[in-house]
């Protein structure tokens, strides 16, 4: 599935509790959204209300996505950064904790970091110009066959454009200022596994191209339609396959349709007292099928595992037929695991329709935390030690100094003089008394989860380790804001775009001993490349260690720059991003930890997995989909 999961485009998710709060707000916001039949009593019924009519949306994201979500940017229409009449930064809407708050120091930060100025503004087109949209070519016979199946479909321009892209910078840029050369010709909304089987059969019969679409949060160009594709392109939107089919409390598993988005899955499981614990930063929008298709990773993987640890069973429809296993067991030795052909296949083999996933009781207690370190080196050493002792909390992240300062800039206006006095005192203690240099220190954010008692015990263990590395506990609030930062950044890019600032995130995984070198070298490479390419202001080039493993870590970079004075910013941007990826590979990092390959990173696949490895993947593709029905051209 092309729908990406992971910390897509800087992610939309936040901390679990803020996420949960968000979920609650969101569910209230959707005025009495009708429940899907059978939602109360979960039943393994094969297919819900058959029929092609576009009925009311049952999940958080409607069929007409544009009604709720931005057509040319990240997230909800009502949530965005603006500069208010006083010139102060503000986040609109009520969905997030930051909603309606004034951010007094943010403007200064933007001006200082990017050399941007509020007077230099570019504006996006106000709305989609339907006349620019490539026309829809759909084979008449296919259309007749499709109508006969009563599966809902649309050839509407807006629907098609919305499914022609993910959230890479160049894609958003095209939306704001141009038009895609090739977009899907038709969008279909299957409501169950059987519908998908029918659509795939029709596509095979008429030799059409299917591009699966889940949450649309891809950041690997995975959703872009290959320009040279001459066949009709069907965008198969899984969003209406969003039911939990059953929950098995004895084995702690749930069978779920693949189109469900993260927030709905957690919300609905919570009603029965369960959760999956899989929380990629994009979880508001990304779908279960997308997670499977991209090998997604969640923030709390230390407790719950990544998607490959969570999945018990996958059902996928391919041109060759349906692929699945005969039982739902924790492990089996039956040759190479076929799940691993599916996970990370990025929509090139078929459509994932149903997934059985592990569930856990909702944890009793959650606690945030943060630690300040005198420098990044000490911080990394601490994370390494935590990983060595295998006592990582649900989430542990280490942000570098630039990101720490960024987080600082997003501090809302302080409510009382007392709080501001306290803040001043804290700052004094850390910088003057402890001698931390505010331009060097860095911060780790923590999230503990579980039984109250164990959490407190665990917390102590981690703080003890941190102390050994010169860390100072810096409070729950800082931790929580750190997690908020993650989802806020995705919204921030839209603001940046208004002021000539473009940016993106990318990630990698790397052995422990190379973490520091990789972070330093990649950041430096970005700065140098910007200089060489004529970028006039020093870029924002910052990273965080965002996941820890036994043998290494996942590192996440943000990179943004002011492009005033550059005629082709996207091209320059892409050159720099490419150089940064080369640097990552030269430093012993991976091509991707969880964003996937898509079309953006294909050129490095051979180097990444060797010729033979690539051949193995190709031969699977050739067997499963000899006519390239799933022709999104990702990965291979």
């Amino acid at each position, binding site marked *: 599935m092309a729908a990406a999961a992971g910390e897509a485009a800087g992610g939309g998710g936040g901390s679990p509790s803020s996420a949960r709060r968000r979920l609650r707000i969101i569910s209230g916001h959707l005025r009495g959204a009708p429940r899907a039949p059978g939602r109360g009593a979960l039943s393994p019924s094969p297919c819900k209300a058959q029929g092609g009519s576009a009925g009311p949306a049952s999940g958080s994201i409607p069929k007409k996505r544009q009604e709720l979500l931005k057509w040319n940017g990240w997230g909800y229409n009502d949530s965005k950064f603006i500069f208010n009449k006083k010139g102060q930064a503000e986040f609109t809407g009520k969905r997030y904790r930051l909603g309606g708050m004034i951010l007094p120091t943010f403007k200064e930060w933007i001006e200082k970091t990017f050399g941007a100025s509020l007077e230099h503004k570019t504006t996006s087109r106000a709305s989609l110009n339907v006349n620019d949209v490539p026309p829809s070519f759909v084979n008449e016979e296919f259309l007749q066959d499709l109508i006969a199946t009563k599966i809902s479909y649309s050839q509407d321009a807006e629907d098609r454009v919305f499914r022609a892209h993910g959230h890479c910078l160049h894609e958003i840029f095209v939306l704001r200022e141009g038009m895609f050369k090739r977009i899907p010709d038709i969008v279909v909304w299957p409501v169950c596994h059987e519908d998908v089987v029918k659509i795939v059969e029709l596509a095979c019969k008429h030799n059409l191209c299917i591009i699966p679409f889940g949450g649309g949060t891809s950041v690997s160009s995975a959703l872009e339609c290959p320009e040279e594709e001459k066949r009709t392109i069907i965008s198969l939107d899984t969003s209406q396959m969003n039911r939990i089919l059953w929950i098995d409390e004895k084995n702690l598993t749930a069978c779920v349709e693949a189109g469900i988005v993260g927030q709905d899955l957690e919300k609905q499981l919570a009603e029965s007292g369960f959760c999956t614990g899989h929380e990629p930063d994009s979880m508001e929008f990304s779908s279960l099928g997308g997670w499977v298709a991209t090998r997604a990773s969640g923030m709390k993987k230390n407790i719950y595992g990544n998607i490959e640890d969570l999945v018990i069973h996958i059902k996928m429809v391919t041109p060759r037929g349906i692929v699945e296993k005969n039982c739902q067991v924790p492990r089996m030795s039956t040759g190479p695991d076929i799940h691993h052909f599916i996970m990370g296949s990025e929509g090139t083999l078929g459509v994932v329709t149903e997934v059985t996933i592990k569930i856990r009781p909702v944890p009793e207690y959650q606690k945030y935390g943060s630690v300040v370190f005198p420098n990044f080196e000490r911080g990394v050493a601490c994370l390494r030690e935590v990983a060595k002792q295998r006592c990582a909390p649900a989430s542990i992240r280490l942000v570098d100094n630039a990101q720490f300062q960024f987080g600082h800039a997003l501090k809302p206006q302080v409510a009382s003089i007392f709080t501001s006095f306290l803040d001043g005192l804290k700052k004094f203690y850390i910088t003057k008394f402890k001698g931390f240099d505010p331009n060097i220190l860095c911060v780790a954010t923590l999230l503990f989860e579980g039984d109250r008692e164990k959490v407190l015990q665990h917390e102590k263990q981690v703080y003890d380790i941190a102390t050994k590395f010169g860390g100072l506990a810096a409070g729950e609030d800082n931790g929580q804001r750190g997690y908020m930062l993650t989802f806020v950044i995705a919204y921030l890019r839209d603001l940046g775009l208004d002021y000539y600032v473009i940016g993106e995130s990318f990630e990698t995984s790397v052995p422990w*001993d*190379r973490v520091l*070198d*990789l972070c*330093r*070298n990649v950041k*430096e*490479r970005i700065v140098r490349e910007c200089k060489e390419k004529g970028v006039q202001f020093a870029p924002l080039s910052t990273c965080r260690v965002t996941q820890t493993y036994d043998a290494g870590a996942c590192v996440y970079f943000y990179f943004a720059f002011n492009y005033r004075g550059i005629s082709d910013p996207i091209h320059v941007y892409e050159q720099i991003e490419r150089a940064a990826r080369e640097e990552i*590979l*030269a*430093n*012993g990092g991976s091509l991707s930890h969880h964003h996937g390959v898509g079309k953006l990173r294909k050129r490095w696949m051979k*180097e990444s997995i060797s010729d033979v490895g690539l051949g193995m993947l190709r031969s699977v593709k050739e067997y499963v989909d000899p006519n390239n029905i799933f022709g999104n051209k990702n990965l291979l």
Partner: protein
Amino acid sequence: MATAAAAPGRARRGAPMYSKELTSKKRDEFEDILEERRLSSDLRYAMKCYTPVIYKGLSPCKPNAIKSAVLQSEQVQYVIKQLAKEMGESPDIIQEEATEILDEMGHRMQLGAVRFFAFTLSKIFKQLFQRVCVNEEGMQRLQHAIQEHPVVLLPSHRSYVDFLMLSYLLYTYDLALPVIAAGIDFLGMKIVGELLRRAGAFFMRRSFGGNRLYWAVFAEYVKTMLRSGYAPIEFFLEGTRSRTAKTLTPKFGLLSIVMEPFFKREVFDTYLVPISISYERILEESLYAYELLGVPKPKESTSGLLKARRILSDNFGTIHIYVGQPVSLRTLASGRISRCPYNLVPRHLPQKPSEDIQEFVSDVAYKMELLQIENMVLSPWVLVAALLLQNLPAMEFELLLEKTLWLKGLTRTFGGFIEWPDNLCAKKAVLSGLTLHSNIAQLVDGHVVLNDKGVEDGATGEIVFKRALAILMCATYRNQLLNVFVRPSLVALALQMTPSFRKEEVYSCFSFLRDVFSDEFIFFPGISLKDFEEGCFLLTKCDAIQTSQQEIYPTDKGSVTVSFLSAMFRPFVEGYQLIFRYLSKETKEAFTEKQFIPGVRNFVFQLLEKGVTQCYEALSSDMQKNALAALVQLGAVKKKKMSNGFTYNVNQEAVSKILDMFDARIPVQKPVAARL
């Protein structure tokens, strides 16, 4: 015959070599740093506030902290454990051994010692030299480089003065003082060895290939200093002082050590800075000549140094130091290095560099030496020496002046860096050279005569020796021109050696000469064809030859140039022929280097005594070694490593064949010729 066969594979690398517009290349202006020393107090200078610019990422640390970091490093600990396991010894004992190695090796830089040197060197340098000229822009570039990335200083090596002078220079310009890889023999000098150590020298044994512990400790010591940006690291690519003033072929060991942190991405980049130091008169000139003739080099000793102080009363002219543009290793490596080998093995494990890497290291080494050569200042005297050697035993002064001016033009055309003030007339330039080098040549009755005093009296052997001494000393100066002239000259030689003017035949001959002389002169590996084209280009530029589609021929007025150029290299052609002849007939099939050098020397000596040859330069042990190395490269001699050094086995037939080729019996290689 391993002629240009290897060329196609390597040429594709598009190796960056010689800039086409050699003459128009802009070079920096020089400043005399002694001038200020002569005007103000040396003591105050030595005690000045010294706050050098340092690497931006440096966390300051003491020499001892470096040592303990090296001992504790995974790299060294790994080797210690390995050895302990293999030898069945306790790791503690080996650790102890490592500590001893490190103590023997490590520097102990102290500001006090530095100030002592600053003071004494000021005094000494002012005595010895008229001027010490430095390109200030180069120093500024170096200053930026030092702050940005770890820096490796790669000076040319003609004299012991080199590294003293360089440290002195950096001190003067308030730059971080380098740590210098010095030969262990310095430690034999009482007090001085320790003093050098405190001024930043660290000491390496001459050969330690087999000693894994030594290698590990040494490599880690150097890399630790580099990674932390502790100080610029300085060493000599040539490995030792060139006794002939001709750039020696590079050694790769230390270079590959300093490049490794970048390969493993432990540093973002590393700057390599070629530095050319040229002496109007080399301090050790006569010592070198004796040494080349087989009179052994005195062991470094403090008393020897004190005895040498009488040279303080002598004048050694001007020193020119040209600090080249820092070269980014990252830029050099871009697209050249496959990253896989370093990603799949933990970085602390000792890893034999892949062939790719070895080739790259070698290319970089040659590139750096070529940069040194390009920026090496040539004094007018160098031209005089070259002319004199072609006109022995004496040359009319007026003719010499005329020819000197002519050669100056030619040298500039070929990209040579002649320091000749605009208003200085030829007569003054030559005369001042003669004054400075009166031990080599003198003006007698309007003729410039080689100074081989005592030739008339004494036995023939004595005469030959004295003459050889004078010629080798004189050659030391001519030699400074050779690497600038080698490409066009070998084309000129090939033109003379080839019976026809056909391009492919000339090229075959050129390519043969290039291979034979590959240890004698500096050629970028594997680009024979480019070298040939470069040579032809330069000869065309000075109107010496014309080329058509198939042919190359000298122009009428160019024949002077062509014969001058070939005569310049004639001593090498003849010398090699003599040495090859010795090897093909006169020697046993197997011998050691210790047997070879005296053997061939006697052989040549006898021929000189008999007057059969006039090729005195064949007495030079440097040429003899190079010729032997060339045969090894060409496969005519097999070199085998034995417990007590190397043993050589000669294939006399093969050597004879190579000798034949000097008589223009060089088979043309069709596939190569096709690309001409």
